[in-house]
């Protein structure tokens, strides 16, 4: 999953776009190591020491990983669980809306 997200973040640098994670790793040491290895630069909420049973994913009823929400510039949920090219298309569409000032 990381290569696609990494290239999305790189491609949209300077655009009104942000990738925000909710990370469910229990072990922060391992997490930092992985972020280093995979050049994961985006910001993530931490789901706490209970990992996948942490408070954010529990409240949001997340039972599968990854789970994706795409949110427009007005803060409205517009797409769920889009991956790969579908994610790119969704983001591009919403960026065009944001720029048109819709």
């Amino acid at each position: 999953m990381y290569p696609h997200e990494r290239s999305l973040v790189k491609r949209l640098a300077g655009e009104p776009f942000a990738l925000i994670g909710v990370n469910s790793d229990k072990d922060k040491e391992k997490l930092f190591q992985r972020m280093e290895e995979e050049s994961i630069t985006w910001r993530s909420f931490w789901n706490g020491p209970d990992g996948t049973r942490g408070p954010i994913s529990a409240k949001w009823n997340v039972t599968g990983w990854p789970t994706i929400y795409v949110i427009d510039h007005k803060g409205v949920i517009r797409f769920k669980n889009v991956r790969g090219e579908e994610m790119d298309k969704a983001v591009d569409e919403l960026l065009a809306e944001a720029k048109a000032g819709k």
Partner: protein
Amino acid sequence: MESLTRCTTGRAGTLPPALSKRALGVSSAGNWDLTYSTSRVVVRVAGADPGAGPAGAHRATLPASLLRQEPTVIRTLLAASLALAANAAAAQNRPPAARALEEAAAHLADTAQAEYDALVAEYDAESELVNAANLRVRESDEYKKAAEARDREAVNALFKNVPRIDRDAWAKRFLDAAQQHGSSPDQPLFYGWAFSNTSNKELAEAALAPLLDKHLKSEHWVEFSKGLAYGSRTLGHERTLEVLTTLADGHPNDLVKANALFGRYNTVKRATGENAPNEQQLAAAERDRKRVVELAPDSYAGMSAAAIDFERERLQIGMPVPDIQSEDTQGVEFKLSDYRGKVVVLDFWGDW
């Protein structure tokens, strides 16, 4: 050598580490406490006979040399001295004192928790060895080469001599060990381990029968029931529902009830084929789910049961996204709404 070290760690008034309940391997607090001076160890039994004064039957005194013994011996000696004190109290026609002393003696003589811990530690050590052996293969050049070439036969050959852990054999050991602790309130620990770690239906049923017949109201169900909150693949549909219903109706603890009801909800909702739920069963499952939220809102089952409503009512396409306020991985607090004005991909991820 070890006992000498232990002997010198104690100062009058402070309890030496070797005499802590933890070191002695007792599970719960019990109705007794130890005090220590350089010459003697005193067991005080709560509620035994407060009117009896310092020399009364609510205590037993042993020489401080007790400290040089192994923990199991210390326990046995303490239990024996309390049993004698209980007999003396009974002979003096003081039944409440006798009962309290007997209770304390039984608690000290109960080694179920200690033996359970030892068995789990033995299992953990074996599984660590197995994991390490697997890891050695996976990190070897031969394996990497074979995996890259997708040479299944070579991969299998590399793993052929790696030991495996036989969880069913371990489940049998826990079932056997349970037999030795028939009168202990901690006997369910052994059955619980066996039940939670086997995928063999026969073994699972062998562990479940005493848990339901003899230990239905045990506090240990608080732990075991967590695993049942998502149903059971081992038991099959009908039996899973039967077990969860028995537990939900029969256990006094709200958390256990909540786990059992959430397990029943998940089992019904996920059933397919001939077990697929009809409308009536779905409605009953919904009632179970609401009840889970009422019974234990702060438990994981309670939060998960409530989250189903949250997703339905707040997380659909076209809805304003609920805010998240929490710490990032570096420990800095931020909010999802800090990014309003930008297109946001919110990605629940992890690497485990």
